[in-house]
């Protein structure tokens, strides 16, 4: 469970914001320094509206999951994987990168913009690091504009 660093907010509240992009961060729990640093669920801190989900390995992401998150109205998705060569499951993070690149190509074909989906690598991450990685996505997503699917989500 997440700690009290940020104000937790429901995603419906987040949808009301027109200036703050809604970012979904899916990250490998092995990239985090300790269980105490895990972030889960919606977080709204200063200048950030994000939803965090930990995975047992970044390779657990599937193209369909990433696309559904965007089809449901998230402005951007950030996948956080371990550095290359540091995957507990050998090549999980390499597979994650391939899938992210594949989905980015699909987003371009759908004219949604590949930049809505990005991958970052890191290890021994703290809660603050995760929030910082998400924070870095805010400006690029503001430039990209709101997801046209916003409001169509189930």
């Amino acid at each position: 469970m997440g700690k009290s660093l940020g104000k937790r907010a429901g995603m419906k509240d987040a949808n009301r914001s027109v200036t703050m992009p809604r970012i979904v961060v899916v990250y490998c729990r092995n990239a985090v320094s300790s269980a105490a640093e895990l972030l889960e669920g919606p977080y709204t801190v200063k200048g950030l509206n994000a939803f965090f989900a930990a995975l047992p390995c970044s390779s657990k992401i599937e193209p369909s999951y990433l696309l559904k998150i965007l089809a449901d109205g998230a402005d951007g998705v950030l996948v956080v994987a371990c550095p290359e060569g540091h995957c507990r499951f050998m090549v999980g993070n390499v597979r994650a990168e391939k899938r992210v690149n594949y989905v980015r190509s699909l987003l371009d074909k759908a004219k949604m913009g590949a930049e809505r989906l990005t991958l970052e690598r890191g290890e021994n991450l703290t809660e603050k690091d995760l929030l910082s990685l998400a924070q870095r996505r805010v400006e690029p997503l503001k430039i990209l504009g709101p997801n046209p699917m916003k409001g169509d989500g189930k």
Partner: protein
Amino acid sequence: MIIAEWKPLPELVEILKGHTNVLVVGCATCVAECAAGGEREVETLAPLLQMALKQEGRTINVRTSTLERQCEWEFVEELAKVAPQVDAIVSLACGIGIQAVAERFPELAVYPGVNTTALAIRQEPGTWLARCAACGDCVLGETFGFCPVARCAKSLSNGPCGGTRKNGKCEIDENIDCVWYQIYERAKARGKVEQLLKVRKPKNWSNSGHGGPKRVVREDLRP
């Protein structure tokens, strides 16, 4: 397996422009094995279509379903409950499955979501190679287990042509093996190169596409 590839997204967007409730149907057999039309691909294409159509100013409802086999009537029947709730179906099955769905639900627009391309084998994860052309006159016994119809760019019965590269690749693509080079190498390994000196007569194409639509009847299996 039968392999297929997604149709270009703009083509799918164009054909769906007049529809508002669409069912994307997959097949859990061949097209799932070649990562074109199984459950994963259905669940990937559905949100992608929604987003691509949204960019064109259209909002559509997309349902999804993946049948065990779209080429068997018993499985196609599973769509009977959802069919009345949609105005179009996009099938990610091979051409056989697409036609089965179109035949079962003639009142609906049924569109191919894929192009069916070959009968192939998975060479390694992510790579599929054509192996059979369903020619109706199999010569694999004479060609040491390599099909020159499907695997030779010219479908030569008496190869190789003059386009074999020195490294045994085909002149049309350096990544494609010359199948007649492979046939020769296997014949040599088995000490039977002399068998390749026999001139193979023209194939009997009447047992395949050249004889009209193929129809096989087994009286012992009919009702």
